[in-house]
């Protein structure tokens, strides 16, 4: 049987309920929270500030440095605190996702630190992390030529769906589950990150990218909504 019904009753191209909030960490130069259903990410931006150690400074432009981690109790089975191979890879993917829209040429020898924590996890954590980080960078006033938006597309047996949950990620029937996490510029058809694992024919992968493009448009509206609400709030 083809996968037609999602456990939580969502349409195939529907993301979970999303929330976005700006300025959740007062100490930071910019911060934001983003959630897809039960998956919640918070991000804080510190900088631009002088890069230490000094040998990592770039005299031509500022450097973006991201760290991603999960709270130990954010998953069903406790995650050992501290960096892992997985978190190091995701941190780098987040850096690559955000770098193309940042313009750090006016800030030589500096670093912009983006620290991201997953406080509660139910799949698509890297996508929530990127969406939160993009908002935090915007609040921090870092020059950006566009916003980026991230989404995970799943292929469950032969069916493409938007924003997979943990339950869907573990789907085993037919061709099983394929998870495709992608980040796109909000106003240009440019991919800033693309990761996949599973089993998908080349044609279906192309469709998945198109579906991701359509899905990020809606997520982008949530991001913009949060930024506008924040500006309104601070006019008072």
């Amino acid at each position, binding site marked *: 049987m083809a996968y037609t019904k999602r456990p939580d009753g969502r349409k195939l191209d529907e993301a979970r309920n999303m929330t976005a909030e700006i300025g959740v960490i007062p100490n930071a130069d910019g911060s934001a929270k983003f959630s897809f259903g039960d998956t919640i990410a918070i991000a804080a931006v510190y900088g631009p500030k002088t890069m230490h150690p000094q040998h990592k400074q770039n005299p031509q432009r500022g450097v973006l440095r991201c760290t991603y981690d999960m709270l130990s109790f954010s998953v069903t*089975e406790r995650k050992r605190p501290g960096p892992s*191979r*997985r978190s*190091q*890879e995701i941190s*780098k993917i987040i*850096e*690559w996702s955000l*770098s*193309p829209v940042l313009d750090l040429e006016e800030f030589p020898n500096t670093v912009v630190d983006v620290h991201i924590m997953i406080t509660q996890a139910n799949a698509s954590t890297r996508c929530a992390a990127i969406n939160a980080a993009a908002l935090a960078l915007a609040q921090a006033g870092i020059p950006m030529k566009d916003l980026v938006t991230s989404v995970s597309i799943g292929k469950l047996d032969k069916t493409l769906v938007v924003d997979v949950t943990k339950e869907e990620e573990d789907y085993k029937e037919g061709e099983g589950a394929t998870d*495709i996490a992608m980040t*796109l*510029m909000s106003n240009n*058809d*440019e*991919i*800033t*990150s*693309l*990761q*996949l*694992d*599973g*089993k*998908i*024919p*080349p044609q279906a*992968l*192309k469709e998945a*990218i*198109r579906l991701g*493009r359509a899905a990020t448009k809606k997520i982008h509206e949530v991001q913009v909504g949060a930024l506008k609400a924040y500006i309104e709030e601070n006019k008072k």
Partner: protein
Amino acid sequence: MNIEETNLTQRRISEHLLKGRRFDGRKPLELRKLEITTGVSKNAEGSARVKLGNTEVVAGIKLNVATPYPNEEESGTMMTTVELTPLSSSRYELGPPRFDAIEVARIIDRGLRESGMIDFKKLCITPGEKVWSIFVDIFSINDDGNVMDAAGIAALAALRSAKMPKYDKETGKVLFGEWTEDKLPLNEEITPINLTFHKIGDNFLIDPTAAEEDSAESRISLALSNWEGQVMVNSVQKSNEAELSILKAEEVIDLAEKTFKELSERINTDIRK
């Protein structure tokens, strides 16, 4: 060799590629000379050396008995590590693996695992208690670019050559250094191949030399395999900071499928030799 390539060299490489040419005379989607040798390290359960031009890597397989993961009580496990050794290039230093090594290991691991070539269920000894654990360890011997794809081929060849060690059921211990005639439970019909495309200007190339690798703006790795008569993509990773348009991504997916079809038979034959 092995110093950072100058801007001048990078420009020359890029200009040449515009005309579809490379310094060593290859076409953009042509591999260097590929040599695969299995059984290169006697004490390993399986091993292979892969040379791609001047690039050389070795992969070895070791098995051990371990407890399974709580969510997969009836499945064996696999762990892939990559070391980019200081012996292989002046760019690498001793110490714990850095991000570039971790990334290669994780990409190769996903390609092998998701292809379904290994029947992890058959690696179960006692459900919930004892399973076989496969260690795929890959070392660079000489890095002249594209260690990534060479590592993937070496891992595949080493896995196919591996023999199960003897196991004492009474004591629950592995008798290291003694082997059975059994091979690992692999589906030999499935040949996962990792192909990394490097984008220079508007063009893609595969199997770059170190100089070409340095000139590339971005790269995207795709692991492909054949599954029930069709080509499947098992893993994708776009790396580096430069963005990639949706149109270019679609182009690279097509190129990957085409290149996989051309290469898989040849690599299969080379491994079986």
